[in-house]
Every structure is written in structure tokens, then in C-alpha cells.
């Protein structure tokens, strides 16, 4: 075949590097978006039940987290069959449990937060992780993390008794919309 000059070779290598980076990001977005939509649906249900039946909120959020963990394993297994990339494994589960344990320690044991404060704390705490992870894996996580945090704070300070309904829309709905947006980008 016709030999190519070093400039063309460098350009081909740069293209390979660029597309590999896009595939990695696309794979992460693809798997993360499914999890995000699932957590969005669960969170919406969680806030709605918290609003209409606050007595059951404690048990309900444990159920939401348990269902989310099981769902994350299912999504990871389905994704692995296609891409050979796992989005959720036991190490991720351990990180998630440590994260939740610290959240419980800070909000209940140290902070003695009331219901409204808890409804604002958990999404902001989770969105902090989304935003930090986004600095490495993709700007979509940063945009989603900061948007939901800002909307949560607006609701916390300016939305009265409807705060849990507001959170169902901005946290649950935000995750669903964010997931759908990620699938398109």
C-alpha cells in the first residue's frame, strides 16, 4: 500500500484516541442514564408518599433505596451482556452504603434534621457526588447535579407546605429528564 507520512499517521492516531474517548463517554452515559431514569421514578414515588403519608416516610425511603440497589444490579447485568462494562458491582454497592451511612450519621445523629431538612439534604448530598463524578466522566453529570441542587434550594427556601411535591418534580422529574437527555447526547 502507499506509505503515509508521519503527519497523516499522527492524525490517524489522534482520531483513534478521540473516538475511543467518545465511546467511553457514550457507554457511561448510556448505562448511567438508565439508572438515573430508574432512580427518578423511585424518588418521585418516594416524595409523593412522603407528602401524602408522612408517617410512612422512614420505611418508604429504605424500600426506595433497596429497590434502587436491586434495579442498579439488573441494569448493570443487562449492560454487561452487551458492552462487557459493569455499571454497578459490589464495590459500587459498598461505596453507596458508606455514602448513605455517612449521610445518616450527619443528618440524624449529628444534625437532628427535621423532615423538610431531610428532604433537602439527601438530594443535595447525592447531587454533590453527581457533580464531582461529572468532572471526570462528562459535563452532563455536572449540569444535572448543579441544576437539581439549585432547584432544591429554591424549593427549600421559597416553597411552603408543598415542598415534597416540589421535590417529586425537581428531583424525581429532574433525574428522569436528565437521564433522557443523556441518552440523546
Amino acid at each position: 500500500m502507499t506509505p503515509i507520512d508521519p503527519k497523516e499517521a499522527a492524525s490517524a492516531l489522534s482520531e483513534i484516541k478521540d473516538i475511543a474517548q467518545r465511546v467511553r463517554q457514550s457507554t457511561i452515559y448510556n448505562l448511567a442514564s438508565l439508572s438515573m431514569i430508574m432512580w427518578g421514578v423511585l424518588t418521585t414515588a418516594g416524595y409523593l408518599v412522603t407528602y401524602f403519608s408522612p408517617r410512612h416516610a422512614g420505611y418508604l425511603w429504605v424500600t426506595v433505596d433497596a429497590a434502587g440497589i436491586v434495579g442498579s444490579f439488573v441494569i448493570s447485568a443487562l449492560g454487561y451482556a452487551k458492552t462487557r462494562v459493569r455499571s454497578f458491582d459490589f464495590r459500587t454497592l459498598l461505596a453507596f452504603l458508606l455514602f448513605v451511612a455517612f449521610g445518616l450519621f450527619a443528618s440524624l445523629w449529628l444534625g437532628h434534621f427535621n423532615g423538610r431538612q431531610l428532604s433537602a439534604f439527601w438530594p443535595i448530598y447525592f447531587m454533590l457526588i453527581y457533580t464531582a463524578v461529572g468532572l471526570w466522566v462528562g459535563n452532563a453529570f455536572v449540569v444535572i447535579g448543579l441544576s437539581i441542587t439549585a432547584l432544591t434550594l429554591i424549593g427549600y427556601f421559597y416553597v411552603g407546605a408543598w415542598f415534597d411535591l416540589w421535590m417529586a418534580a425537581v428531583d424525581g422529574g429532574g433525574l428522569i429528564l436528565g437521564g433522557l437527555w443523556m441518552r440523546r447526547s
Partner: protein
Amino acid sequence: MAELDDIIHQPLRLRIMAALNALPSGGGLEFVRLKKLTGATDGNLGAHIETLAKAGYVAVDKAFVGRKPQTTVTATAVGRGAFARHVATLQEIIAASARPA
């Protein structure tokens, strides 16, 4: 110096192979995602995938998900080897140009 692989060297086929090789062994990409990642048109992408499949570099799996047909393309072991050699040759070309004559 090793020769560049004529089949992989074509720009769109290089992008297809680069995309598939970015996944762990055995991982595949759906046609729609591959099209988006490589910026190719349906017809163009289909033709170049066929060329790669004839060379044994990719495997094409057609299945139905619900009622929708879904085509998944995966790099074969032969294709991964050819791609690795092609990349090594490109790197050799650059290294050779940097050496004093």
C-alpha cells in the same frame, strides 16, 4: 517496518474499528450508536461494516428487540489483532520520523 492494513486504513473503517476496540473484548455497539459515534450515513456505514465483516474483522449480530430490528457489531479477535498491528505501525511511522537520519 510493518505495513499498514489496507482494510482498516480507510478513514471510516478506521473510526469503526477504533470505536469497537475501545470496548472490552466481546463488547459490541448497536448500529445506531456506531452511526452517531462515527458520523456516517446508514448506507455508508453498512457498506464499510460489510467490508470489515468479509475480512473477518467484525461480527454482525441481527436480532429483534420487541418488534424493532437491532444490529450489533463486535470486533473479532482477528480484527482486534489487525487493529493493534495497524496502530503499532502508525506509531512506528511517527517514531521513525523523529529519529535522526
